[in-house]
């Protein structure tokens, strides 16, 4: 999978994000590093923040197109 569909899913889930970055770590279209900066993360624990990212990418996670996902989340502060 290319990075664009993942970026689109994240932008849809986090319309107020100041940063959405998707990196194909291995060039094989299945190991990704995503970074999301959004005020939606303010006041949430890291577990809750990562859960929101997992929810946004539930489709490609469930059907196996994402083999490995690294997540970095940042709030607005």
């Amino acid at each position, binding site marked *: 999978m290319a990075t664009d569909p993942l970026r689109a899913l994240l932008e849809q889930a986090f319309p107020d994000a100041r940063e959405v970055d998707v990196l194909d770590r291995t060039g094989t279209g299945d190991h990704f590093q995503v970074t999301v900066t959004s005020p939606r993360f303010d006041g949430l624990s*890291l*577990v809750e923040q*990562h*859960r929101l990212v*997992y929810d946004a990418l*539930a489709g490609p996670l469930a059907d196996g197109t994402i083999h490995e*996902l*690294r*997540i*970095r989340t940042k709030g607005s502060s």
Partner: protein
Amino acid sequence: MSDLSDNIRQVIEGEDVALFMKGTPQMVMCGNSMRALEALRRAGAPVTAVDILPDPAIREELSAISGWPTIPQVFVRGELIGGADIVEELEGSGDLERTLEEKLGPGYRDSREEKTLVVTSFAAP
């Protein structure tokens, strides 16, 4: 509820620090499991490891319990702390040690030990 699900819950709730991983601390089979294990080691955590690879049902039951889709998963006294990214981030900021101290007491490093448990779908004899 299945025996396997019961056994997984017992590990999560009964162990101070439970690490569900691919492989064992002696033979780690995945880079992310290694990242989580090494962050826990740096923090001096008493790790109880469970290898999820022997049976695909372990991972299915675990994710059904935790609501967390990926491996590894780290629990401290029954609470999901996160996967490799979060555990590394918490270790880097010092928050992992603070959480361990808060939940296990300031002397948690003294009891440091690493063990491996096996969960199966069969009830213990």
